[in-house]
């Protein structure tokens, strides 16, 4: 029995969002008389942090503290329409819609503030701490709360904004088959190092090193969290998970978490991640989104690492010990490749 080390690399190019129906999302922003703002969305936060990111985007656009913004994603029956939380589209599509809505709301807020301060709205700026003042004359100032109260009870204005982001639908050229399915792409490269046991066929992750280019990271800790966790979904797809282990016979399929194999805390390995920020021209503050791409490069990198370790090319997922052993047997034994 020998344990063989191998290293594999993969690079990916990942489209943000999709082309279907123009992939629209809507957002509504309005102020309450307290001077706090509510963002209404139908997009759902599954734990990836979309509420945090849209809150940041809204606060930054309005020019108010992030604490003054509440994101409400509760109800898709009553909220503005959204295609959904998928296709790595949340930050980009929903973020753009929130930005448009916040921009419109900011316009009304500045008009209302201008009326109170008896100046031109174009001469006003926000300080990001809940105040609006005349450029170059910070003492000529009014708080967003006072503006909200004046708009509501005196001026009869709604400080609110509507936003939608819609990508023009790209049709397939009947002559060439050409189309433009996405407006921006994220990129990643990952190196996986594995150890393959040629007696049991078991593959152990030794370490991962990766670089992700995902536009501007609006919330670096959330990006890191998603990349760290998502890589293990990738490993899980590569080595463990399948609802159809003996396709097409479903009899031996997994029925629960005991039989549906996933990595546990003892299976993880060090993962060094570099985040490269190249702002996207059409992204909110240059953001694209980590989304699904956090798992994507892991699968081919692991498959390549297994080839590097024992010389077998397995193109059927997941790469179970059984498949590794059968492949090694068919080759007449493990054939470690040159270390890269």
């Amino acid at each position, binding site marked *: 029995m020998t344990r063989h080390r191998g290293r594999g690399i993969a690079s990916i190019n990942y489209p943000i969002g999709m082309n279907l129906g123009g992939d629209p999302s809507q957002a509504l922003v309005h102020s309450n008389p307290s001077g706090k703002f509510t963002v209404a969305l139908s997009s759902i936060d*599954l734990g990836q942090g979309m509420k945090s990111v849209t809150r940041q985007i809204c606060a930054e656009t309005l020019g108010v503290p992030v604490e003054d913004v509440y994101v409400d994603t509760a109800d898709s029956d009553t909220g503005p329409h959204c295609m959904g939380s998928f296709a790595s589209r949340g930050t980009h599509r929903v973020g753009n819609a929130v930005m448009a809505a916040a921009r419109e709301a900011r316009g009304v807020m500045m008009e209302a503030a201008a009326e109170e301060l008896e100046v031109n709205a174009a001469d006003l700026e926000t300080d990001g701490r809940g105040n609006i003042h005349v450029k170059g004359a910070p003492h000529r100032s009014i708080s967003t709360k006072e503006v909200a109260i004046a708009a509501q009870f005196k001026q009869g204005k709604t400080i609110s904004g509507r936003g939608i982001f819609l990508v023009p639908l790209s049709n397939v050229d009947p002559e060439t088959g050409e189309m433009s399915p996405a407006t921006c792409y994220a990129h990643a490269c990952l190196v996986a190092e594995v150890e393959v046991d040629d007696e049991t066929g078991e593959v152990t992750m030794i370490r991962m090193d990766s670089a992700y280019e995902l536009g501007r990271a609006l919330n670096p800790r959330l990006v890191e969290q998603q990349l760290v*966790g998502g*890589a293990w979904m990738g490993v899980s797809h590569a080595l463990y998970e399948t609802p159809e282990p003996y396709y097409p016979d479903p009899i031996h399929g997994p029925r*629960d978490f005991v039989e549906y194999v996933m990595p*546990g805390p*003892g299976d993880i390995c060090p993962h060094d991640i570099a985040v490269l920020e190249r702002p996207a021209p059409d992204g909110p503050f240059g953001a694209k989104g980590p989304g699904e791409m956090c798992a994507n490069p892991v699968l081919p990198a692991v498959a390549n690492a297994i080839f590097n370790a024992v010389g077998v090319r397995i193109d059927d997922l997941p790469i179970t010990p059984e498949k590794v052993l059968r492949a090694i047997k068919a080759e007449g034994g493990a054939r470690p490749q040159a270390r890269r």
Partner: protein
Amino acid sequence: MAKTALQFRHNGSDVAIFVDGGTNLLVALRELIGDMTPKFGCGQGGCGTCSVLIDGELHLSCLTLAETVAGRSVETLDSLKQGPNLHPLQRAFADNFAAQCGYCTPGMLMAAKALLDRNPSPSRAEVVEAISGNICRCTGYEPIINAILAASGGRASA
């Protein structure tokens, strides 16, 4: 079917309920007592999100017959927070971004509490062992391990 009277301590308070024979502790806690902090994941001991402490020992509430806790002390995640003050483990989970969807978090916290109660400064390997019965789909475990080490005063690193 006749119901059985059952009394036990739940997070420091005495509770008395009537349970059907065969009712598991998870159902008793959630449906009869109204403590929704232990989660239903798989119902057969495969995921760990229903974990609770019985007399200080970690148990899967979905595999525990409710009647077996008569006279004993059951602690759930709900016992960790004291008023507005988070338990040091909860604070460490937040600070280390150890939750994403959050469904595994109650079980992870109870498994971590059981560990720190008997071993206040565990090694990384001991932390991994302690949460090995709990599945997490989102985090890749690394932030959870770091959070538990941080709460124990240990060094949070890979």
